[in-house]
């Protein structure tokens, strides 16, 4: 079983649009949306949200007012400024470390489990899909990503499916690390802008840190041809292969509005053709 994770460093380079197209092109796969902060893949793939599982993770302190003697021990020990002057817990600031509860001499503090989000096990016309929704402002996005990947892997193993196609989050922090840890294949979607070039290098370094050799795809190549050359040079220097160059195409947005991928919306468009050719390249490279 292979796992292909699509990431980008910079947000908005076109990860989800490309994953939606690959979902159309690849035959036998499980789909996973690991951008649990701001999941969008479901807007195109229209899953049925068949099974909804609660995701409990992390804890928040709770003070029993009747037991509390306001000795202020908790305030002294809390490193996250989560206990106010009048002994109320700032739920957003609380890290869930439990130090306050452990040392409260009155045993007046409880650590209560957080409902941090939901995981969905769905069906789509393109196969099974695992996706999630993180609660507003929750932490633990990395753990939720791990949960999504775990369910996707289970689904693939149970049904002997050779590929898991994963839409990843932007950045290089916790949820991205959770998305690529232990993965064998990464596709980085970049675009010919100075910001994206800068972010590309950092995300490639992250992949190297985890000993994964990524492929690169340059999206919206006609925004700035000279920046495309710079990306090509940078990739050569980093010894990373570019396996796709996709033109900017207004049809990609039009397709999104119609809740379709570009390969469904306009298969004859240059963007669709380039994505199909990149998908064929990926099939060869991954041997799927």
């Amino acid at each position: 079983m292979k796992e292909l994770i699509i990431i980008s460093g910079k947000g908005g380079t076109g990860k989800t649009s490309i994953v939606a197209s690959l979902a159309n092109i690849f035959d036998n796969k499980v789909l996973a949306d690991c951008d649990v902060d701001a999941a969008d893949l479901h807007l195109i793939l229209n899953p049925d949200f068949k099974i909804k599982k609660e995701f409990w993770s992390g804890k928040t302190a709770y003070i029993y007012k009747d037991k509390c003697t306001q000795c202020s021990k908790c305030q002294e020990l809390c490193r996250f400024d989560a206990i106010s002057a009048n002994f109320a817990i700032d739920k957003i600031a609380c890290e869930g470390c439990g130090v306050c509860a452990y040392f409260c001499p009155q045993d007046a503090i409880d650590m209560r489990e957080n409902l941090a989000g939901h995981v969905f096990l769905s069906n789509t016309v393109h196969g099974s899909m695992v996706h999630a929704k993180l609660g507003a402002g929750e932490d633990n996005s990395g753990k939720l990503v791990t949960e999504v990947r775990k369910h996707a892997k289970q689904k693939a193993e149970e049904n002997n499916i050779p590929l898991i196609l994963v839409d990843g989050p932007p950045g290089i922090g916790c949820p991205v690390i959770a998305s690529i840890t232990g993965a064998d294949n990464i596709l980085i979607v970049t675009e010919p802008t100075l910001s994206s070039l800068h972010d590309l290098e950092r995300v490639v370094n992250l992949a190297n840190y985890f000993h994964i050799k990524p492929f690169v795809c340059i999206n919206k190549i006609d925004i700035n041809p000279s920046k495309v050359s710079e990306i090509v040079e940078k990739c050569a220097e980093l010894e990373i292969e570019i396996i796709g160059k996709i033109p900017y195409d207004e049809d990609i947005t039009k397709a999104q509005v119609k809740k379709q991928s570009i390969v469904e919306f306009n298969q004859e468009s240059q963007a669709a053709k380039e994505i199909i050719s990149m998908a064929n390249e990926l099939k060869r490279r991954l041997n799927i």
Partner: protein
Amino acid sequence: MQISIASGKGGTGKTTIATNLAYFLKKQNKTVTLLDCDVEEPNCHLFLHPTWTSTEKSTSKIPLVNMSKCIKCGRCGDICHFGAIANIKDTVLVFPELCHGCGGCSIVCPTGAITESEKEIGDVQTGTADGLEIVQGLLKVGEPMSPPLIRSVKKYANTDDEFVIVDCPPGTSCPVIESLKNSDFILLITEPTPFGLNDLKLAVDVVNELKIPFAVGINRSTIGDSTVWDYCKEQNIPIILEIPHDRHIARAYSEGILLLKALPQYEEKFADILEHIKEVLPS
């Protein structure tokens, strides 16, 4: 006054708005600090070309175990909610990448075998560009936890400044919350597409939790469909900025040229933002 620029979705134009708003305010002779809190991928500097005047290592605390004092009582492992320290047989293992730096283990240790050492999580760089103060965090590659670094960046906010502009990371989870804390006003940037709308709704949920006044800015306003306007109208959310899809803007952006330097005609848009904020926050 702290104005934060955020969005659920990445790539909607947060950095463009944050850098140009800071630049515009500076041009109006205001005192301004720009904080780049997108520490995973900080990009404000690409548009403002600051001269960095100082770089400081940002650290978080991790336990350091002196095994000669350890009596293997296991209390350190019991108190840790993050699985970052464990007494296994004859030794104590520390997993720094899981540690939140709460200090519980070192306090609970009955023999004083646990002290704390510093783990580097990134750099905080400060500099100036045309009189504008800029502070950015740069997360160390491979470090999962960005909120402590964001906290360090925010400590550099000069409270005497008339304006502190915060460029937030994308998303809706803890790094975003950390960046948005103490904001007086939040501007959520989106684009008029199904993805933009979906992620805007998620960002609105977060901002509502924080109970901070906010408005929406729509970038590439001439693409997509009308559903973002419909949603904002229905929710009574003011739209205080619309920037059309314009290849000249995309081109300048791709080269790292500040929008207001390339296309000064957009200045009015930024004046409008401030006008709106003044109305909402009379002080």
